[in-house]
């Protein structure tokens, strides 16, 4: 084994094309939909959410949904201070789909519902999504760093081994595909140790299982759609939208759609995020702080960082494009396209 970490092509290109270091904390991509809240969480009482340090107040009145820059009781008084994100109206475009409220972040003139990502395993109207599948967690890092953590596979063996397995397997192959707006990571693992949580409460008695895990990441809004399928076992489809709260924090209203898994796994598995999240935060918090430091020491990479480096590269390209004033979606981008085949869903 070489002592020098090997860098993949994306890593080399990322290093070559960027004059700056990877600075995830400053990425502020716009003209995209953010799933800012579960639909079921919003009633007549205004709830405050944040996107890129900007207030989004959500409430319903007379059955109608509102997403505004200001609290409803202060809206009229403060409307003069409304930003260009609402064209000065104070109200963001907002749509309900897949059990979420999606708020538009960007130029309201460019809003299109077709830009909401397709989530094939969730009912579009959100009906029938059990509350036990929905868990909100908070990460102590900017969204891109949190997403990179999700893309990164090798950390799990060390940080989450007690919850999701020790990473031992016969074969472990990772593929990465991308467009200008998405990164897709496909992991095929044969004969891996069955995750403790699946063995204890998931009814999988075998010692080994195969895994095909697809993670589909939308770059602008950090919506991560995941379809891990275990054999023997079952798929545990999930959505993890990393809503950027600011440069230091992100919020994830997860949907772990375990409805087809056996009980009690289906009820308890979504709660595993309360175990995983503190483990991730223990590294993300100091890591995020260090990305504020100007340094000549670039991050090193191994071949295992291929998906993460691809993500970095594409995020930088997108950010640089937006910095040049180009906020459009490329010909290869269609967020609403059916990704059932991409995820490898059964049936």
């Amino acid at each position, binding site marked *: 084994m070489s002592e020098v970490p090997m860098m993949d092509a994306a890593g080399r290109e990322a290093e070559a094309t960027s004059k700056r270091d990877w*600075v995830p904390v*400053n*990425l*502020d*991509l*716009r003209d995209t939909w953010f799933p800012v809240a*579960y639909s079921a*969480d919003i009633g007549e*009482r*205004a*709830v*405050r959410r*944040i996107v*890129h*340090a*900007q*207030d989004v107040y959500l409430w319903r009145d007379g059955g109608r949904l509102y997403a505004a820059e200001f*609290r409803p009781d202060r809206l009229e008084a403060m409307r003069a*201070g*409304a*930003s*260009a*994100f609402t064209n000065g109206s104070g109200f963001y475009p907002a749509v309900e789909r897949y059990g979420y409220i999606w708020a538009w972040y*960007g*130029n309201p003139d460019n809003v299109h519902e077709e830009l909401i990502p397709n989530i094939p395993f969730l009912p579009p109207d959100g009906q029938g999504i059990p509350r036990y599948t929905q868990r*909100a*967690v*908070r990460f*102590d890092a900017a969204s891109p760093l949190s997403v990179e953590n999700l893309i990164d596979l090798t950390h799990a063996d060390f940080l989450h081994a007690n919850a999701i397995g020790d990473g031992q397997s016969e074969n472990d192959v990772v593929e990465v595909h991308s467009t200008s707006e998405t990164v897709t990571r496909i992991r095929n693992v044969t004969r891996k140790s069955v995750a403790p949580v699946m063995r204890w409460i998931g009814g999988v008695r075998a010692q080994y299982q195969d895994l095909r895990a697809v993670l589909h990441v939308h770059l602008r809004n950090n919506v991560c759609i995941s379809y891990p399928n275990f054999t023997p076992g079952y798929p545990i489809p999930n959505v993890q939208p990393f809503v950027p*709260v*600011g*440069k*230091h*924090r992100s919020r994830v209203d997860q949907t772990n759609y375990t409805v087809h898994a056996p009980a009690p796994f289906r009820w308890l598995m979504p709660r595993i995020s*309360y175990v995983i*999240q*503190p483990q991730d935060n223990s590294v993300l*918090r*100091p890591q*995020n*702080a260090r990305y*504020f430091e100007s340094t000549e020491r670039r991050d090193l990479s191994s071949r295992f960082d291929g998906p993460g480096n691809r993500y970095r590269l594409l995020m*930088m390209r997108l*950010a*640089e494009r*937006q*910095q040049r*004033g180009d*906020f459009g979606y490329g010909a290869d981008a269609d967020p609403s396209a059916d990704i059932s085949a991409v995820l490898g869903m059964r049936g």
Partner: protein
Amino acid sequence: MGRWWAVALSEAVHGDKALAVTCEGEQLAVFRDGKGAVFALEDRCPHRRVPLSPGPVKPGGLQCPYHGWTFDGATGLCNDIPNLRRDERVPARYAARAFPAAEANGFIHVWRGAGTPAAVLPGAWYRAAGREQTGSAVANIAFDQYLDVMLDGPECLLSFPGVHITDFFLGDPRRDGEHLVLDRGAVWKGKGNGPAFVRDHSLWVRTRVPVRGGDIRVELLSAEEDPLVTIFIAASENRRGTTSLVWRGFLHAMAAPLPWRWRTARAIGRAPFAIFPHIDGAAVAALEVAPSRDRRLAKTDTRMPAERVVPVQERCAV
């Protein structure tokens, strides 16, 4: 350009005694004349450099406890040297350093630095609208760090009994004139499964920290952002890496539905907040530098304060 600093509680300065305070690392003697007007002199006699603050307040000003020289509070001029002959006069250039002083809303302010004192005092906004709690302390933390920690981890510096202040702050600090404003989530202790399991925080803690100066406002807000507790903390650099603190705070009329335990504790007179004079160094050291970066950047930024309305194009930054 100079600025006003709130250095003492009004009630701490009374009678014929001066109060020794430290502001921007400089020791001052604050006192009142017979009419109640407040004055501030450098706590150093220009004669033999002893502190003036232990001396008595006389009709002519503050008298040095060592040789009895007396200094006018407004001008600092020495107007009496005991035992001078009748034909002797105090030289006109004999004076202690005097600082403009003013009082407002329970705080005594001192102007330090160049320029004409500004019309608005840091404590001008403070109006107690409920039962007050006041105090002063010297905290074992450097002044600039105190302000930074107030953004990065106010739970290291103060507490609201019955309330768990989380470290999940909302977005980045918002520039409001010479201050940075940041909200963070908080929850009632003993209700629910703890902050990690909360979908939406039931409380907010809003910290308003100056870029320059020492006037800090901390508020405990309901989920509807109605104030429950308001605190004004005046901080200033003390000596040897410590920070002078004086504060006033009050409990608002409790209109919102609040936990009965919290209401009961307040009803029997338990304080609604605590300011820590002894700060846990390990807790402070463990804080990551996060929103306070914006304060450090703002300190070096000489441009006009940021506008609330930012064009979309300018918000897209890499």
